Every structure is written in structure tokens, then in C-alpha cells.
């Protein structure tokens, strides 16, 4: 993050260790539970879950209609509902509309469907700017939205979380649902990227390679 830190990392780490040892000693938290929580969010939950929902919507028009009508219910049909994703609204990108998700107040995000949010999503810059200059913000992600396309920004809150249903890329008619899911990135489901057809994925993405 761009913010400076009052406290050096070592000081914070020590403080956290002290709190952890007190909580464990008092039986308030169980060390194994802490490990399980960390493992869950580092290894089990992540954008691959959202990608399944998107791919299903691309191949199954009835599911897509249910998903857009009542995201919460359609996602629970797939058994993919979970903590911090209890109430979901899914917004569809089309040739006319590009959707973008933010949480200006904190960093509300559908954890069960996308995992924990990236630092940029939690940054003051994203939270403050995306509601006044979304096109400029998207340019920083290398995404140029043509002026005839409307940009809609959705501000999440504690109880309601959004997911973008990106446009299915061209020339993917022969791909299976699982293959389609592998094309869908986290940023595409937040709205800071589009989904690229597989031919583009095999080429190096020049703007993404750091010098």
C-alpha cells in the first residue's frame, strides 16, 4: 500500500504474537482452528469458485437467467454459497454495459466466491477513485472502455456483495465448461479486466510483464 507505517513490521509481529499467545492460553482461540482458517483462505477458497459460476452461466442459459434474477439463490443451487457471500447480486457485462465493483466504505467482497480481496481492491486509491473516475482507474489496469459503452459502478456493503458476469469471449464455442472456467480471472469478475479468448492467453501480455 502507499500508506506509511507508524510501527515497524517487527513491532507489529510481536504485538500479534502476544495477542495470539494470550488468546490461546485463555482458550479463546484454538491454534488448530487458526491454521485451518489460514489454510482455507490461502488454498481452498478463491476465484476458481466464481469462475465455475461464470462458466456455468455461459453454457446454460436457464441458469444464467436464474443467476441474474436472484444471484443468491442460483449460487446456492451450485452449493457455492458461504461466509461473506450470503446475499449476492450478479451484474452482466454486455457490448453496451461494463460493470465494476467496489466497496468504498471498507472492502466488502464475496469471500466465499472470490477468496480474500487483493490489496488494490482494499486500497484507498481504488475505494476513493473508482466512483468518480472509473474509466481512468480501468486504464491503470490496461482496460480501455470505449466511450459508447456505459460503465456502471456497484458499491458493495456489509450485507450485499456483487459479482460481475463477464462477456464470454469469441471463438470459444467448442470449449467445455471446465475449459471456459479456466479463462475466467478474478479481475474479470470484479470488472477490472475482460475475459480473453485462449489464443490471447498464450501470448505474453506485454503490459503485465514487469521490467
Amino acid at each position, binding site marked *: *500500500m*502507499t*500508506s*506509511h*507505517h*507508524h*510501527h515497524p*513490521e517487527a513491532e*507489529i*509481529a*510481536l*504485538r*500479534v*504474537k*502476544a*495477542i*495470539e*499467545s*494470550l*488468546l490461546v492460553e*485463555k482458550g*479463546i*482461540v*484454538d491454534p488448530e*482452528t*487458526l*491454521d485451518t*482458517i*489460514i489454510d482455507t*483462505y*490461502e488454498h481452498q477458497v478463491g476465484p476458481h469458485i466464481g469462475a465455475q459460476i461464470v462458466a456455468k452461466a455461459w453454457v446454460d442459459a436457464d441458469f444464467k437467467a436464474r443467476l441474474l434474477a436472484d444471484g443468491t439463490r442460483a449460487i446456492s443451487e451450485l452449493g457455492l454459497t458461504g461466509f*461473506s457471500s450470503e446475499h449476492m447480486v450478479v451484474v452482466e457485462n454486455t457490448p453496451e454495459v461494463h460493470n465494476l465493483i*467496489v466497496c*468504498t*466504505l*471498507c*472492502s466488502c467482497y464475496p469471500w466465499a466466491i472470490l*477468496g*480474500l480481496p*487483493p*490489496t*488494490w481492491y*482494499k*486500497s*484507498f*486509491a*481504488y*475505494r*476513493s*477513485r473508482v*466512483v*468518480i473516475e472509473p474509466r481512468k*482507474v480501468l486504464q*491503470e*489496469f490496461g482496460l480501455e472502455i470505449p466511450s459508447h459503452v456505459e460503465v456502471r459502478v456497484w*458499491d458493495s456493503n*456489509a450485507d450485499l456483495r456483487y459479482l460481475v458476469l463477464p462477456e464470454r469471449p469469441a471463438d470459444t464455442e467448442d470449449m467445455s465448461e471446465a475449459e471456459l472456467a479456466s479463462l475466467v480471472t478474478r479481475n474479470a469478475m470484479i470488472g477490472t479486466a475482460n475475459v480473453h479468448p485462449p489464443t490471447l492467453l498464450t501470448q505474453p501480455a506485454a503490459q*503485465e510483464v*514487469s521490467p
Partner: protein
Amino acid sequence: MNGPHDMGGMHGMGPIPIEENEPVFHSEWEAKVFAMSFATFINYFPVDETRHASERMPPGDYLSSSYYERWLYALELLLTEHHLVTPAEIEARIVELAQSES
């Protein structure tokens, strides 16, 4: 409540800090703060109270802290407000651990 967390439309926050191949947690302490918060806000206080606690951070501190520093502030505030741990116990344990590590 009006506060620094109400950030929509605020100016001057600079470019978006995009990090390629970002890890879920950037350090062990971040992971531990997340896990301790998760474990306690399920059993001792609701998640909404955690959010409110981080919004009660003094504005200057809020704006100069990282995401998980704000979580740590909220965790400590709630642990002490709910009388699960006292501030004195935390400070004493920090001293103890620092001594045993040096």
C-alpha cells in the same frame, strides 16, 4: 457515522497499487490477525462490530495504516471491550516475549 472510511470520491489517493501474483497474506502476522479475527467474530462478536471497530480508529491513524493494521486495531479494541483480554495483559506479554526473544 461520517469518518475517513467514507472514501468514495475522496481526492489525492494516487495510482492504484496493482501487485502481480500477489500472495493472500504478505506476512505471517497478517494471516494470524485475519485468523484470530475470524475465529473471534464468529464466536464472540458479530462481523459488523469488527467493521465498526475499525471505523472507530482515529482518522489520522486510519489513513496511515495498512489494511491488516486496521484489522489488528479492531481486534484489539473488541477483545478489550469484551473483557476477553486487558490492555495491560497485552503490553505485559509483549515485554515478556521481547525478553525471551532477545
